């Protein structure tokens, strides 16, 4: 029993690591995607929307298989863990990108008028107005996607990424103790997701205190 828990803990650590990679990589990728989304160049905007359609329109499971088996065909040889990180980054990046895009669109026209009338240079508009506001607008949705990332990482077991789900399945195949093991795995997932949720609420609260109107008691 102790060895079962130890194995699951290791699996959970890998899941957490994958989710971390997916969230960080996905955020960076999403920022890049948003440069395309709000570009003056129509082709880039077109690319953005096409990419989002594909990333959202194909199940993550299929995407994972596609990337894992397609890459070697192009001569790119990467291990399951690297492939898993890549799959998550590409998929979660699309989710984050839409979250951020929504946040930018939520900035009222009146505030754009303010930034324009002050003659602010674009870098300052981004740093002093767009980023702080989008952060506050999108934090709940952002945390939501972070939690999704943890759960999405379980799909990577199909491309033989050894993480929590695969670890649990291996134990079940060996011991046939389906319920105790799966319940234990569920608990691990729940605790991870719950912690992210709480952390998100905490940050939300901290930012809300800094003078955001609307959602204060």
């Amino acid at each position, binding site marked *: 029993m102790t060895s079962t828990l130890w194995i699951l803990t290791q699996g959970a650590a890998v899941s957490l690591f994958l989710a971390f990679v997916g969230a960080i990589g996905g955020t960076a990728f999403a920022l890049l995607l948003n440069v395309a989304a709000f570009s003056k160049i129509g082709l880039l905007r077109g690319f953005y929307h096409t990419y989002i359609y594909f990333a959202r329109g194909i199940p993550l499971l299929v995407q994972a298989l596609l990337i894992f088996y397609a890459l070697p065909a192009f001569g790119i040889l990467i291990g399951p863990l690297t492939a898993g990180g890549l799959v998550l980054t590409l998929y979660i990046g699309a989710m984050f990108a839409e979250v951020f895009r929504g946040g930018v669109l939520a900035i009222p026209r009146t505030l754009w*008028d303010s930034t324009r*009338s*002050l*003659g602010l*240079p674009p870098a300052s508009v981004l740093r*002093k107005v767009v980023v702080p*506001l989008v952060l506050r607008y999108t934090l709940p949705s952002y945390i939501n996607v972070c939690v999704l990332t943890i759960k999405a990482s379980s799909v990577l077991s199909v491309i033989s990424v050894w993480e929590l789900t695969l670890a649990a399945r291996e134990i079940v195949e060996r011991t046939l103790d389906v319920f105790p093991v799966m319940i234990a795995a569920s608990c691990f997932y729940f605790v991870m997701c719950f912690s992210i949720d709480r952390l998100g609420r905490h940050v939300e609260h901290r930012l809300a205190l800094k003078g955001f*109107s609307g959602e204060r008691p």
Partner: protein
Amino acid sequence: MIEIRGLRKSYGEVEVLKGANLDVAEGEVVTLIGRSGCGKTTLLRCIDLLEEYDEGEIKLDGKLLWYTSAADGSRQRLSEPVIRQMRQRMGIVFQQYNLFPHMTALENVCLGPEFSQKISTRESNEFGRELLARVGLADKVLAYPFQLSGGQQQRVAIARALAMRPRVLLLDEITSALDPELVAEVEDVIRSLLSEGIMMVLVTHAIGFAREISNKIAYVSEGRISEIGPPADVLDRSQDPTLKEFLRRLR
């Protein structure tokens, strides 16, 4: 001084400005009045290029703003950095205050000087505090917009516009969104600016206030300035029946 000549602007099929002309002399206060939809707010926003206009020209101190004529005579929009420079010479205050909700009063006021005009943080903070004190908000420097009343927010917005040390102040119905008892505090701030000799163009429905502070009142009708002159001439001695009707309804 400001010279506006032949300003035209359409939204799709609808022509809002049909060749508006307006002069604002040094230190003058000009109020635009007119029915809603007559184009007065559009005209005001065009002065700061918050709306693009299709034809005509705007000059500030003899210098053409926003557009230039290309060699072949066609009109060309100036580059963004140049436009930003020009915008810094004007301050605009909006009906809905439009303060940045995530910044304190002081941060709102200092944003322009610090990041557009590259004035040091210390210096712009000092100036920002001075301006907030002038609009009677010395004790609200660190307050966020949601902690302030409408009148206080609007006074912060005025301080923010003044922080750029503008040549012109554009005021777009700045008391229209305020509770009646808060109107006076904002009007007092504008009164206190009259001695500065800063040019002002305002849009308002507060005729009494306009009469008191304006050098000239311009009646905007159907996308043009159809009558302009000293307040008494336009408000009391006009022969234009539509203007008389408009004023009668406001009373």
